[in-house]
């Protein structure tokens, strides 16, 4: 079993932009090692900003973040596939290893494994433009996982996909998470996606961005396609929707 998940601790983080807008107000959040947490909220609630602060891509105005410190400990999946169009799928997945200075043969072998892990064996030599939207997103996930990270941050990665691809990728993501037990923080504006994927949903409100409430996804049901039509799923979706409605009204 590869590296296990790492905990994340966000303490009293606030973020003001230069234009005076307050993106986040006093956000505190603890994510346990190996936990799958969704950040659910309407657009403009600062969930992407929070994710970027956790990743270290943005600095909070006040407050602090505890996260794994190693360069290889973190993977990030953006809303778009964000692939280099001039590089093959394999070269794209190799990138984090190349930047870490790994030998060519080793990074090739690991990138091939990572691509196979997302069901893209045989597409190593394809260029991004030759792949469908869902496949590009798989390459993006393979790239994030190729360093065996202990924390995977995802910023609405499936928002631009059609529903069929999205459902399949949801299942595949869960399978990868169950295999590797990294900590996952998943930003989404879809109630259904957050309920299907996560163990806990953190619901955020706007103006300023803040955590409104938290909802554990309490179910003993296996996370498979049948879960989507189960009574538990429907009940939790209803709860999450209600809390999201409150967060937006407040």
């Amino acid at each position, binding site marked *: 079993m590869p590296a296990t998940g790492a905990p994340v601790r966000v303490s009293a983080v606030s973020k003001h932009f230069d234009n005076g807008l307050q993106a986040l107000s006093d956000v505190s959040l603890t994510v346990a090692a190996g936990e799958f947490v969704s950040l659910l909220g309407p657009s403009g609630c600062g969930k992407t900003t929070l994710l*970027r602060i956790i*990743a*270290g*891509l943005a600095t909070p105005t006040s407050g602090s973040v505890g996260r794994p410190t190693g*360069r290889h400990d*973190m993977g*990030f999946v*953006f*809303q*778009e596939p*964000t692939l*280099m*169009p*001039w*590089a093959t799928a394999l070269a794209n997945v190799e*990138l*984090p290893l*190349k*930047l*870490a200075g790994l030998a060519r043969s080793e990074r090739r072998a690991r990138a091939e494994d990572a691509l196979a892990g997302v069901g893209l064996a045989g597409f190593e030599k394809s*260029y*991004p*433009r030759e792949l469908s939207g869902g496949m590009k997103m798989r390459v993006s996930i393979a790239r994030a996982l190729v360093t065996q990270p202990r924390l995977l941050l995802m910023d609405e990665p499936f928002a631009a996909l059609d529903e069929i691809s999205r459902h399949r990728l949801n299942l595949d993501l869960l399978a990868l998470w169950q295999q590797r037990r990294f900590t996952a923080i998943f930003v989404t504006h879809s109630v259904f996606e957050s309920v299907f994927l996560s163990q806990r949903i953190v619901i955020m409100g706007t103006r300023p961005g803040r955590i409104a409430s938290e909802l554990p996804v309490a179910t003993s049901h296996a996370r498979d396609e049948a879960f989507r039509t189960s009574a538990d799923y429907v009940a939790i979706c209803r709860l999450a929707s209600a809390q999201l409605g409150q967060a937006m009204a407040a």
Partner: protein
Amino acid sequence: MSVKVVAPLVLGLLVLGLWEEAVRALAVPPYILPGPILIARTLVADWSTLAPSLWVTLSITLAALGAAVVVGGVLAVLFSLSRWVELSLFPYAVVLQVTPVVAIAPLIIVWANDVDLSLLICAWLVAFFPILSNTILGLRSVDRNLLSLFELYGAGRWRTLVYLRLPAALPYFLGGLRISGGLALIGAVVAEFVAGTGGNASGLAWRILEAGYQLKVPRMFAALALISATGIAIFLVLTLLSHLLLRRWHESALDGQE
């Protein structure tokens, strides 16, 4: 052969045929307008005079283009690395670009004190700006998220430049190169007109001037045809280069596929 080749070819032959017919039917004297057949004959007959001149013009053009690629490319990279360098130098690059080369050519000829060198400088002056400005644009048009990704993996400035900014700028650079290829030739020819020097090692522009003084109009047309052919050849070679480098991944190289 595709219609893309056949259509302009047919039109070209048709126009040449009409031209020849008109010159014959109206009995236009060759010192006013020679027909295409006479021009072709002159090209063959005067080849021993024209070929060395073609070589001179071509080598100045290519050297200027090479210098434009090096200076334009290096400056663009420097500009992208340092905002201060860009803020201080870019206005002067613009000044060089907007000042007509014909106007500064006499100065350059006085200063350089060597005809070939001054022609090279003039051609370079005209050619380097499109490469500079296009490459700067390309180096800046990098996907924000890819930049974040490189930052996340601690790539640093240098590796971000090599692995991300330069490949992203390639299509823009090649677009600039295609414009500069034609401009380098124009610069070389214009500068030679201004320099107006004769001798054995003179280019096609001088041959045109010389033939004009002697009223050898067919030879003027022959030299003109060679200049055009050179420009077309440069354009085609650069287009092919661009296609070969971009065909696997860039949108601009994808027409006719899928």
